[in-house]
């Protein structure tokens, strides 16, 4: 059973991530691929299900954003932990488009990637099965400050210096 973290705490994964060919459940919350979301939009809207969308990490987020805004959940892909494309997608979606639903990371989601992911606006994490969820929670306090503004709202070094000087 994979661990799941939301907003810095262990949580129950209350969304079902569906493969494209899998049947829709009668009730609940589902995450579908962007392809399926587009193909079955009417059926999904009529189903009464809560629907989140999984986006390919190769897509240009600025083109997708209008479609995604208003959704309760967007899932970004981490096919390998060393693939950083989803970080840009999440950051642009939060910062530029003001997306306020859940952004969750799926795939090769590891302890040592969590700190930067959450700074980019990813707030939910489906941990890879071998990760120790309890130990992963420590990752969010790896650093107490940062030079760059992040979605965690931590005051940047630059802001702190400005405040100290004021």
């Amino acid at each position, binding site marked *: 059973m994979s661990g799941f973290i939301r907003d810095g705490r262990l949580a129950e994964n209350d969304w079902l991530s569906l493969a494209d060919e899998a049947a829709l459940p009668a009730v609940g919350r589902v995450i579908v691929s962007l392809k399926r979301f587009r193909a079955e939009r009417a059926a999904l809207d009529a189903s009464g299900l809560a629907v989140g969308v999984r986006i390919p990490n190769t897509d240009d987020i600025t083109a997708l954003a209008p479609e995604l805004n208003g959704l309760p959940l967007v899932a970004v892909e981490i096919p390998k932990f060393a693939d*950083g494309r989803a970080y840009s997608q999440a950051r642009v979606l939060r910062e530029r488009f003001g997306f306020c639903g859940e952004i969750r990371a799926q795939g090769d989601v590891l302890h*040592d990637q969590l700190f930067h992911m959450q700074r980019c606006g990813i707030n939910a994490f489906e941990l890879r099965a071998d990760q120790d969820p309890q*130990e992963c929670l420590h990752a969010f306090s790896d650093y107490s400050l940062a030079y*760059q503004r992040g979605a965690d709202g931590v005051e940047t*070094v630059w802001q702190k*210096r*400005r405040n100290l000087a004021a």
Partner: protein
Amino acid sequence: MYRYDELDQRLVDERVAQFRDQTRRFLAGKLSEEEFRSLRLRNGLYIQRFAPMLRLAVPYGMLSSARLRKLAHIARAYDKGYCHVTTRQNIQFNWPKLEQVPDILAELATVQMHAIQTSGNCIRNTTTDHLAGVAADELVDPRPYCEITRQWSTFHPEFNWLPRKFKIAFSSSTLDRAAIAVHDIGVHIVRNEAGELGYSIFVGGGLGRMPMLAHKIREFLPELDLFSYLESILRVYNRLGRRDNIHRARIKVLVKSLGPAKFTELVEAEWAQLKDSYLKLQPQDLERIKSRFDQHPYDSASADDGSYEAHVAADGRFASWAKRNLRAHRQPGYAAVFVSLKAPGVAPGDITHQQLDALADLADRYSFGEVRTTHDQNLVLAEVPKKDVYAVWQRLAELGLATPNIGLLTDLICCPGLDFCSLANAGSIGVAQDIFDRFEDLDYQHDIGELKIKMSGCMNGCGHHSVGHIGILGVDKHGEEWYQVTLGGSAENDATLGDRTGPSIARAGIADAVEKLIQVYLEQRQDAEETFLATYRRVGMAPFKQRLYGGAEAEVESEVAA
């Protein structure tokens, strides 16, 4: 020297704690080899052919005497008594123990040093001119701009997992000493017609197996817009750079495949969204950074008492060293003293703990406590009063650090090669030694004049062979070490990639080959003022090729092999 504030220090300390925990988890079997690899690389730790190698960041090449003494201590306590200056102004230790690396990093943090992002597919150490702040041809001191770039790039949450490594260099002078044309981003600090300070931005240069020169994608970027523009470039690269083939993953390949015009258009579109955001610097941000750089109390009136000229007149050895190893300082009465790390019998760029300690003393006494590293793998005491240059030279000579060869044939740069590096196809240090032995005669070297020989043990090009006046590249041929030779490269304002002479040459023939090339040059040059590079550019490859291969390339190659 930039002095950390409490915030800079806290981040470096927290990094040490993080890496200590990562190392603990690795040793406890909780982190796989592959996952730990990417984490240790971001702390400069490679597992090499024989032992781990630890690369420390020396931001824009600045070392204090306290840093030098700490390096000496680490060399003694954790290594084999020496360290190595790299072609990107960093420092490497070749024999640390993996489990001790967190302790080494903790020691470094006490002198405001770290190994953050010195490897891995992230933004690497920012480099610049080793004569920054003292060069006469400088517009402004580039180091505060390098420092803000260091801060911006440190733990950047979005750009820690790029397609490939990413290197940024700054130049602020008429003569480019920072090789900005062969960096992922080259920043040239300029003034526009209105007299405002800003930057020309170059993207997509790089060495390695597909050497390319950078394209200028923006003529003028206003001073306070640096971060937003850098983020725009990195964001385009992070999204579109290739991840399927490590040899096609650098930004230079993206710029080439899209074309510079299309690439620029994408960057500008991104920048239109970011330029007026929180990424815009405030003038006080920069002023605060500048104010944390030590100001040096120059005293031109007493710096030169005339004794320097007297020593030059009286001591021929001193005079010839001074001619080669001194550079002008823009402050009257001062000089920049180059400390050659290219002595016979020593691997280029290596320095011992005794030499480090002694240099720290020299720096404290004569050069405001500072030493710089150069990308040619030497050191510089950049601010020595002329009246003290003779005493500095005497001490350097005792230390074996006064070889009068800066800019000459034996001031060659080379990577660690097969002796240390697990990537290398061929040795470099031994070849460097062969060349050193062949051209030991300093008068002959002086006659040959300015010549940059650059050597890499493999295509990755850490020795920058593509931009050597003579470039030497080690290749593996059926398990034997062979070398391709290129001519005419340069990393300065006239940046050019070298041309291949022809088939590769066996290890035993390299010193001979260099000698033949030198003979051709000496025969062909118009006068002693015409450098090797200028002569090559004028006469072209033909006479050099003729002498090397005698017009029968394949035959010669097989002969050399036999």
